[in-house]
């Protein structure tokens, strides 16, 4: 007679179930929590000769409702989503910067030329000249400001890259720690899954995936993590940390480097290409920098270079109030030429802008192979010059080596217009220096100012295809298109995430109504099992009463 034991096994199962339901209810809102349930089985029967009498219920295990495929899909969608969001956060800022046509570079450009027309109409009027000087200075200020904003965004991206890299390393370490805890927990519970530790590890991994796209390989219950083209972040118990380092090509930009093992426990830092890191907020930042920030800053620089070179050329042909020949109106810094950190030769390289109309707003890489210089555009990679003689002229730029000797394998990065918008300055400081006159004859001569004013609509950029203002509107359009694309992609991605989340939650999520029903149900099981003990006790009493 084992009714009491039977009741006891039922009580145990009901308690485990009630406890699990309670756990589920408590963690209904916990990130990364997977619904748990009690696995029970019949305890089997004892052969009584007349048949098998059931021995109650056995509590086997607590399992989580988890589907690896659905979980991975959700994480992948979130990785792409995080990349789009960080890209979007950055581009929204320049979208706003170039947003209002009534403020910023475009109206300053119009006012500058408007002032030029006013001087052309009344060259002897000192007030008109003073106003033009003021407007020129405000135009320079607007272009400098826009560039300073882009520069500060570049700085900000550098900071974000180092922060994200540090975060990635710390997440990888947490995965390693959890790996170890899980192994220990499993070993000490005779193979029962430590559900909550598993949930935690997957949650950490999902947070890591929102920083950068990583790949996970599960081996004996432990996670190994790789990034990029298979660079190992976590292998066994060893973490290979990432590092943010200044690029050898361009020290102003931080890039991600991984620690490559060189044997005997040492590692060396190797730069990873921006394109190899896809997904996550890190991927979004890197993509934004090369796709949007670099090109927009080059475009703005080209606009500044076009303005300065076109205005200067005509201004120098004129005469100022005192009949002196015109000087430069604007000044412009020389193009940036960055020597690769790996260069072995002593060559000092430089470049000058020769023709604004030919500028392409691209960067260029110059490689010396021992006899020939090969110059390719970056990005794009088309060869624009190949030869053994310098200076090399290409796309309105002239590259030359002013001293020292290069060695085979040396390379330089030429950024013709990257810093042009920042280095644009007003070269004249006195309104009387404005060379409005076409001859040295008199102060009412506005011929040169008329020619300068014509630059407003003259096609001075893009091989005769764009005026200055059109070049600006092209930047506005580019930024607008990129922002729109990002917004559209983000929306679609958000929907995808939502769908994947729904599918994952359908399996793993806690439904409170369901748990409520479970509570009722297991409470009843508990009551029924208690009743078994009660009955057992009554039966026992009956037997005792027989004797009495």
């Amino acid at each position, binding site marked *: 007679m084992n009714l009491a034991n039977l009741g006891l096994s039922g009580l145990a199962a009901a308690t485990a179930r009630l406890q699990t339901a309670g756990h589920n209810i408590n963690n209904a809102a916990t990130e990364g929590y997977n619904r748990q349930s009690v696995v029970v089985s019949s305890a089997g029967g004892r052969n009584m000769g007349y048949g098998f009498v059931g021995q109650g219920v056995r509590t086997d295990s607590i399992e989580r409702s988890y589907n690896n495929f659905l979980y991975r899909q959700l994480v992948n969608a979130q990785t792409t989503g995080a990349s789009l969001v960080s890209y979007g956060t950055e581009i929204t800022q320049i979208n706003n910067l170039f947003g209002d046509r009534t403020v910023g570079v475009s109206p300053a450009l119009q006012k500058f*030329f408007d002032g030029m027309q006013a001087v052309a109409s009344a060259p002897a009027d000192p007030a008109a000249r003073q106003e033009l000087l003021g407007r020129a200075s405000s135009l320079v200020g607007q272009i400098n400001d826009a560039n300073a904003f882009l520069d500060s965004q570049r700085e900000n991206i550098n900071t974000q890259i180092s922060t994200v890299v540090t975060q990635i390393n710390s997440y990888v370490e947490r995965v390693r720690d959890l790996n170890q805890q899980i192994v220990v927990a499993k070993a000490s519970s005779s193979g029962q899954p430590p559900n909550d530790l598993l949930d935690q590890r997957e949650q950490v991994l999902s947070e890591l995936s929102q920083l950068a796209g990583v790949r996970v390989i599960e081996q004996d219950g432990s996670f190994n993590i790789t990034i990029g083209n298979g660079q190992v972040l976590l292998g066994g118990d060893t973490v290979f940390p990432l590092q943010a380092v200044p690029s050898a090509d361009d020290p102003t930009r931080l890039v991600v480097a991984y620690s490559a093992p060189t044997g005997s426990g040492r590692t060396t830092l190797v730069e990873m290409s921006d394109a190899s890191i896809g997904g996550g907020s890190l991927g979004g930042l890197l993509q934004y920098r090369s796709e949007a920030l670099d090109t927009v800053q080059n475009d703005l620089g080209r606009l500044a270079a076009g303005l300065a070179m076109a205005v200067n050329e005509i201004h120098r042909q004129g005469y100022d109030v005192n009949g002196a020949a015109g000087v430069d109106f604007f000044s412009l810094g020389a193009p940036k030429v960055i020597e690769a950190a790996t260069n072995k030769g002593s060559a000092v390289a430089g470049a000058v802008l020769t023709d604004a109309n030919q500028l392409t707003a691209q960067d260029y890489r110059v490689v010396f192979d021992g006899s020939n210089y090969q110059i390719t555009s970056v990005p794009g990679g088309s060869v624009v010059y190949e030869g053994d003689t310098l200076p090399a002229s290409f796309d309105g730029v002239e590259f030359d080596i002013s001293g020292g000797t290069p060695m085979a394998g040396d390379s330089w990065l030429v950024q013709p217009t990257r810093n042009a918008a920042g280095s644009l300055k007003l070269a004249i400081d006195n309104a009387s220096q404005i060379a409005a006159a076409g001859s040295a004859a008199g102060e009412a001569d506005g011929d040169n100012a008329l020619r300068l004013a014509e630059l407003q609509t003259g096609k001075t950029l893009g091989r005769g295809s764009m005026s200055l203002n059109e070049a600006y*509107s092209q930047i506005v359009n580019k930024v*607008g298109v990129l*922002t729109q694309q990002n917004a559209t992609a983000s929306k679609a991605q958000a929907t995808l995430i939502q769908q994947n989340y*729904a599918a994952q*939650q359908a399996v793993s*999520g806690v439904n*409170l109504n369901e748990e409520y029903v479970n509570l009722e149900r297991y409470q009843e099981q508990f009551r029924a099992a208690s009743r078994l003990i009660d009955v057992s006790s009554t039966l026992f009493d009956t037997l005792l009463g027989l004797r009495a």
Partner: protein
Amino acid sequence: MRISSSYFFQTGLNAINAQQSDLLHLYQQAASGQRMVTPADDPLGAAQAVNLSQSQSLNERYAANRDVLKMNLGNEENALNSVTTLLQDIKTRLVEAGNGTMSDADRATLADVLRNSKETLFGLANSTDGNGQYLFSGFSATQPAFVKDAGGAVSYAGDGGKREIQADQTRRIAATDLGSDVFARAASGSRAYLTQAGAGNQGTGLIGAPVVTDAQGEHVGMPFTIEFTETAGPDPVLQYTVNTFDADGDPQSYGPIDYEEGTTTLQLPGGVQVAFSGQPKAGDSFSVEPAAHADTELNVFDTLDAIIQALETPNDGDELGQAKVANALASAMQRIDVNYNQVLTVRASVGSRLNEIDAIDANGSSRGLSYANQLSKLEDVDYYTVTTQLELRRSALEAAALAFKKIQGTSLFNMGSS
């Protein structure tokens, strides 16, 4: 499908967020009146707006330029109007001076009147605009157009610069004219001839009223000089030689021809005829110059100086003196006529420029309207659409919130507690 509770809350939140962000965008559109809050809303439209606004600002600039032109040309027109009246007045005085009954004293008075006129004309030629810039001095705006030397002779001191102003995209219009054109040159294409007697003439020969008798004549457009000589011998015959130039600019001489006394006209070879009378002497010379010729000196001030000097020279009872005055008067009247015609021509050109500006103005304002219209189409929000949308979104948001609350209220836990 199982719906997890956190998914349910998440979805409710997402739905409300989405509705709210749409609502915010509509609100931004309605509040700013702009269809495009950022370029991303319509990248192409945003770029077009930048270009259109440049066209619009250029159009406004050209209108401002035309205002400057109108002001300058208005100033010039005023000055030229006064010059016209003054020249008419001078012409009347010259006709008066030709009256043979005038005494030396009368002529001296007339000379005074003309001297005053010269001063007035000098002032008008040095007119300035509102900014104190001289109208007629070319590029040298701070330099008076005409200056007077110690002897009172007036000469042009400006330069040949043409002050042009951009009146629209393709048209530049001169804002002023040169003093040397207005006061010292014949209208281009003028076929008028001017006569002058040599300063040292001893005879009483009178020259005047040159006319072109044959427009196709060989020497029309060339200057002539008429020189009187006597044949040698006891019975000298008065003869004259006409010197001129051929089409290539090489000098050419006709004569000597015997001078017939009592003649009234001289037929110059090659299509020009002058009135000629009186008794010239050997050694006398006369010139007949085309007004439009490059070498012809037509400074109106010099003309006035010459006539003033002639009028001030006493000649009562002096035949030679009277002949000099008569020749000087004839020459002066011809010259003043040419100057007068030139001033009228310049005035007409100023008027036609003002007309052209009016026409461009009309074009410009209709273009301005069209730009404003296009910009408005690109940028301005359609309030009817936005307010309707706003209403729609607001109800959608309310519905989403209400639905969320309703469904959330059906939780078994809630029912249990109520």
